[in-house]
């Protein structure tokens, strides 16, 4: 029985069977994005109380924190796909890693950008050379390096494998980002959401943050799947099944 399941999963490792599956899943993930985003934004702008010290300006953290989480999480997922691609030599894994990279880069950029907007009224500076800010910037550079390396290699399979090694080397950096707060302990405030001790923020704010994080998550999946579908079409353009697709014929 379990054997059947394994075969069942590997079926979707082939671009030909994954392409229609992704096509069916994408509207669902867009729907989930809306389901989480609408109440999330409502809490962000209306329900969450004004912060006693930070005023209205703090509301940007509802974008900033989920974006920062996603930028780190996507890098780990990307590296996991990359490692899977190296270990099992599946073509789809490399495509997934390639499809995730731009979304991760955008998330890293958004977290830096919104962080600057938050920092200006709170710290009086657009940018401070704090450990966590700096490592977020390095994460952004790592994404750019990954994208640039893949773009520079014409052979798609070699690009996947070279990118995979780079992603696995870079993934060492992601825990350093997370723990840098504890290591260097500088200007940046400590992590606001903690699993070990009671959160320091109001419950509505926590809900808002979680809803926004889920919305960002679903958005990332939807966008990455869309991109993977485009990559599949590009790379498999020579195959019969792509030529048979309705959207290609039209």
């Amino acid at each position: 029985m379990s054997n059947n399941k394994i075969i069942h999963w590997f079926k979707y490792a082939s671009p030909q069977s994954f392409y229609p599956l992704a096509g069916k899943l994408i509207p669902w993930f867009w729907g989930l994005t809306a389901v989480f985003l609408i109440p999330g934004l409502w809490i962000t702008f209306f329900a969450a109380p004004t912060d006693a010290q930070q005023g209205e300006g703090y509301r940007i953290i509802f974008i900033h924190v989920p974006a920062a989480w996603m930028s780190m999480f996507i890098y780990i997922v990307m590296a996991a796909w990359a490692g899977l691609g190296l270990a099992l030599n599946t073509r789809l894994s490399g495509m997934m890693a390639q499809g995730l990279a731009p979304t991760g880069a955008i998330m890293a950029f958004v977290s830096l950008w919104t962080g600057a907007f938050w920092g200006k009224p709170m710290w009086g500076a657009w940018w401070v050379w704090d450990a966590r800010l700096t490592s977020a910037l390095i994460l952004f550079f790592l994404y750019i390096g990954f994208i640039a390396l893949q773009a520079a290699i014409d052979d798609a399979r070699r690009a996947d494998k070279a990118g995979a090694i780079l992603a696995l080397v870079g993934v060492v950096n992601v825990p350093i980002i997370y723990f840098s707060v504890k290591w260097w302990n500088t200007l940046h405030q400590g992590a606001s959401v903690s699993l070990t001790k009671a959160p320091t923020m109001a419950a509505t704010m926590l809900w808002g943050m979680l809803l926004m994080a889920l919305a960002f998550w679903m958005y990332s999946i939807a966008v990455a799947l869309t991109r993977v579908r485009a990559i599949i079409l590009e790379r498999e353009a020579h195959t019969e099944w792509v030529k048979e697709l309705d959207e290609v014929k039209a």
Partner: protein
Amino acid sequence: MNAILAIIRRDLLLAMRRKSEVLTALFFFIIVVSLFPLGIGPETALLRKIAPGILWVAALLATMLGLSRLFAPDHADGTLEQMVLAPSPLGLLVTGKIIAHWITTGLPLVLLAPVLGIQFDLDSGALGVLMIALLIGTPLLSLIGAIGAALTLGVRGGGVLLSLLVLPLYVPALIFGAGAVEAHISGLGAGGHLSLLAALLALAVFFAPWATTAALRIALE
């Protein structure tokens, strides 16, 4: 072990035959370091404060210069393919090449740094810490750089791409390396920074040759 020694001897011999390449990187290091006082001004207190960072950034850039030569000539004349086919494991040969690269680019920086540090008015204690930090840090730079050099082997615009890939990965070495000297100057003691730098080196010694070998095999497929 013999294979490593043979590779180191070969690469050093090649470097000795083409001295200008090694010396170019070295003079690049000296010139970059000397440019900063010209740009910032000769104020001693300020120079002393920024010296560790400048020396380390210049060391990163100088190491970068030599990286594209690490595998490219061997790739061009087919030697690299023979190394892959050789009976000794490729990882060992790669380690030998990295050691040779460090001896030709990293070690001269370690020896030169105190001389340049004097220009920045660092005292003898700080110079000692700077040398130790560079002694631990430059092999780390060579090891991490080798991964980038292998990944960009024969790739369009390899040189610029190499710096894009490798420089972000150099950041921890820069932070702890320059931090060690700063911590010493401020009286905190450099031990913690040096230990972290050494920990990074231990990690890199274990993983970097392995990752470099994998990247080389992909490049030669």
